[in-house]
């Protein structure tokens, strides 16, 4: 029972480079989310998806793109990395929103942009 799997766990990027953070879940959850956590701050929502083919912006979407071609996968794309994108990124999933049910989070990707 893998839950939510994120790869890579760590990455160092140079300014202007691009990369894709991978996220996969095996729980058949409809909803998937990408959050970032900056030091001393709470998690902030970047993008979310309510099902395959449907994505929407969260609180801090600038500089990122997502796609949801399958229920299982929800990759996050950084096109032109900037130092402000240095953060820990968490992917999460849930059956549905609007309830007290919690999300299942991945273990995170620590990204440094230099």
């Amino acid at each position: 029972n893998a839950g939510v799997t994120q790869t890579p766990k760590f990455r160092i990027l140079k300014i202007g480079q691009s990369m894709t953070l991978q996220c996969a879940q095996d729980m058949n959850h409809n909803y998937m989310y990408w959050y970032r956590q900056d030091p001393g701050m709470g998690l902030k929502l970047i993008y979310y998806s309510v099902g395959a083919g449907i994505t929407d912006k969260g609180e801090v979407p600038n500089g990122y793109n997502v796609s949801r071609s399958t229920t299982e996968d929800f990759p996050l794309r950084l096109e032109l990395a900037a130092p402000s994108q240095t953060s820990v990124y968490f992917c999460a999933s849930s059956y549905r929103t609007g309830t007290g049910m919690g999300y299942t989070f991945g273990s995170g990707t620590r990204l440094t942009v230099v």
Partner: protein
Amino acid sequence: DQQVKQNSPSLSVQEGRISILNCDYTNSMFDYFLWYKKYPAEGPTFLISISSIKDKNEDGRFTVFLNKSAKHLSLHIVPSQPGDSAVYFCAARNENNNDMRFGAGTRLTVKP
């Protein structure tokens, strides 16, 4: 715009005693409140939640209290155990909104 605030970055308690973690929010539209626990190098894990129609929810050693008039909630852990040492995040959401807002977290240390 910090809609969910945890004003205590850290808390230290003795094993067996009560741990009380506090959280304040500003958005009156929030109707669900959750607590997550996070160990180093792991993602947050869901701990307990409470709907805005309740003022208390209990699950074993964990109890969450909600005071809507004060826009305040708290998590009580009794008795505290060393394995409870982690960062605890308070979160809030509106049922019609997909944006769950998180506090900055409180690092709890339970000393043996």
